[in-house]
């Protein structure tokens, strides 16, 4: 099968996947106690007003009818309007997304960097202090609760040392003049506003470091075990027998051959983070998708929650297709 056909197949296959996720979320939300009307009006609202509002929002129709109405809307890209803000859900999601993307992107850079280098060198120095350090590091960091680690960093670098801001994306008025992408660091560069850029970076350091370090533990372990396996292969000894330097043996042969499974995990992790690093965003009051979802759940904002979930499922699908393409490019034996 050609790569093009494969990609097309994967895209078609992700439609039922998204549909299944959507269906589950739709019914679970409606089976659980509470609905947007009750959440908005409170427990003491008179029943006739509740009924009137439920009728207005279509919540009095049978669930199955509501489901098909929603599906027919989603099919044409209509995510509905939020029952909390009355704004289009898609517009809200697209507005929150750049913040999450920015945080995720910088966190991934930190995590991938730590994962690749610490993991590779640990594998290369199997059983030596470097390896022991990497193993202790990954177990230690893996067991950190994200919010606890975030709060500790806020305490040290924000409260005690006053080096970095502890919450939000920017200081007041430190917003790019013209928003092109919504990613502040990128917009600031496009606008040439260096003070805004520095401010955005300062706000990014603590949350992205928190998230990056916590995720890096999985990457370190993944890279270490896969590189360890590659290093014991005959082709590594054969490369050494050709006079290749140890650095090239580690990175060009062992690491590169280990990349497909590592990339798969990294890609999925990236997709998961795009879906909102909920704890990190809450800890640092980061105005991203994770925060959005948490708020809307408490308001039983059905269209917003459903919309956010479809949005996430979409990213997981897109990124896993991208990972497959990159893997096929690295390893010529992978053919679809």
């Amino acid at each position, binding site marked *: 099968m050609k790569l093009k056909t494969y990609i097309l197949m994967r895209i078609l296959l992700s439609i039922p996947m998204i549909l299944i996720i959507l269906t589950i979320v739709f019914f679970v939300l409606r089976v659980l106690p509470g609905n947007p009307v009750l959440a908005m009006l409170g427990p003491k609202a008179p029943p006739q007003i509740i009924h009137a509002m439920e009728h207005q929002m279509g919540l009095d129709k049978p669930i199955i009818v509501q489901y098909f109405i929603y599906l027919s809307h989603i099919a044409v890209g209509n995510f509905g309007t939020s029952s909390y803000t009355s704004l289009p859900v898609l517009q809200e999601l697209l507005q929150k997304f750049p913040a999450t993307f920015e945080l995720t992107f910088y966190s991934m850079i930190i995590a991938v960097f730590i994962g690749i280098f610490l993991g590779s060198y640990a594998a290369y120095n199997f059983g030596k202090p470097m390896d022991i350090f990497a193993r202790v590091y990954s177990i230690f960091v893996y067991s950190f609760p994200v919010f606890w680690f975030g709060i500790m960093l806020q305490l040290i670098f924000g409260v005690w040392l006053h080096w970095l801001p502890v919450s939000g994306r920017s200081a007041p008025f430190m917003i790019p003049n013209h928003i092109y992408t919504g990613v502040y660091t990128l917009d600031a560069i496009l606008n040439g506003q260096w003070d805004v850029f520095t401010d955005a970076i300062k706000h990014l350091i603590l949350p992205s470091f928190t998230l990056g370090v916590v995720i890096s533990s999985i990457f370190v372990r993944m890279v270490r075990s896969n590189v360890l396996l590659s290093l014991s292969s*005959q*082709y590594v000894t054969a490369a050494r*027998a050709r*006079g290749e330097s140890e650095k090239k043996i580690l990175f060009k042969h062992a690491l590169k*051959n280990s990349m497909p499974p590592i990339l798969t995990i990294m890609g999925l992790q990236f997709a998961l983070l795009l879906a909102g690093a909920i704890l990190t965003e809450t800890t640092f009051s980061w105005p991203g998708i994770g925060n959005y979802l948490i708020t809307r759940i408490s308001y039983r904002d059905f269209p917003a929650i459903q919309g956010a979930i479809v949005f996430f499922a979409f990213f997981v699908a897109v990124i896993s297709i991208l990972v497959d393409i990159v893997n096929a490019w690295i390893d010529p034996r992978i053919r679809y």
Partner: protein
Amino acid sequence: MSQENSLEIKNLNIEYLTRSGTVHAVKDASFSVAKKETLGIVGESGCGKSTTGHAILKLLPSNARAKGEIVYKGRNVLTMPEKEVRHLRGKDISIVFQDPMTSLDPIMRVKDHFLELMRAHKPNVKEEEVIQTASEALEAAGVSKKRLDNYPFEFSGGMRQRVMIALGIALKPNVIVADEPTTSLDVVVQEQIMEVFRHLKKTKDMSIVLITHDLGIVAELADKVVVMYAGEVMEYADVYNLYKNPLHPYTQLLLKSVPNIKIDDMELHHIPGSLPDLKNLPPGCRFYDRCPFAKDKCKKEEPPIFKVDKREVRCWLYE
């Protein structure tokens, strides 16, 4: 010894440190390979022949401890700094491994393997030069140069071994170590690969260290033979005399165990017993348990090397 030797191995001792104890893989091995000569190292599995072969390029795993001398161009490879050994590998001494299926990097084209080999020794070598050298080497090993752009998975086992041989001879090394180059291949392909070695022996000026358990191959290609058993050199002689008149009981039994269709002997001979535990060696001769001529002395004292008209044999029979 004389200046004509391209490789000299003196009192080589190799141990592997493992969790369950120290494995004495090679003990006091001494032999030499003259220029253009083919030396066969024979013995059964686990007797230390591959360990010896890998030690020549200092390719032993990190838990191995090697002592003694491997002299190449007047210098001991074992004590050479890693960086200098690196420049010998592939250029002065090269190796062909037992399993061609896993010896090539699966994500690199054949061309890239040659590129890597040549860049390692000449950092700014031109690509045309690499292609030129690679084509010649591949041609000599029986692979069309059209296949330079192919990936290893597009080759059969025999073809991969030819590529490995081509990589081994590309930079015209003085010594090539062939570590059981045909063991994992089927008989027809084995013969084809041996044909490549025959051709190399005739046409190239290099010494070959041929590690194998196939006595037929050794008889045909080798000039001298080292017979190893449980990490020790049991007999070291020129090929003609070794086959005509094997001295060591192990060599005798080994030669007898080769099936021969010419004589009317339908029985398949084998050597009863198995190798001693290399972690816990008996005090006497290592072949004591399996030797038909074993004496009391053999059990108590380990035999040294005895010289019998220019041949070497480790057996009390020749005291």
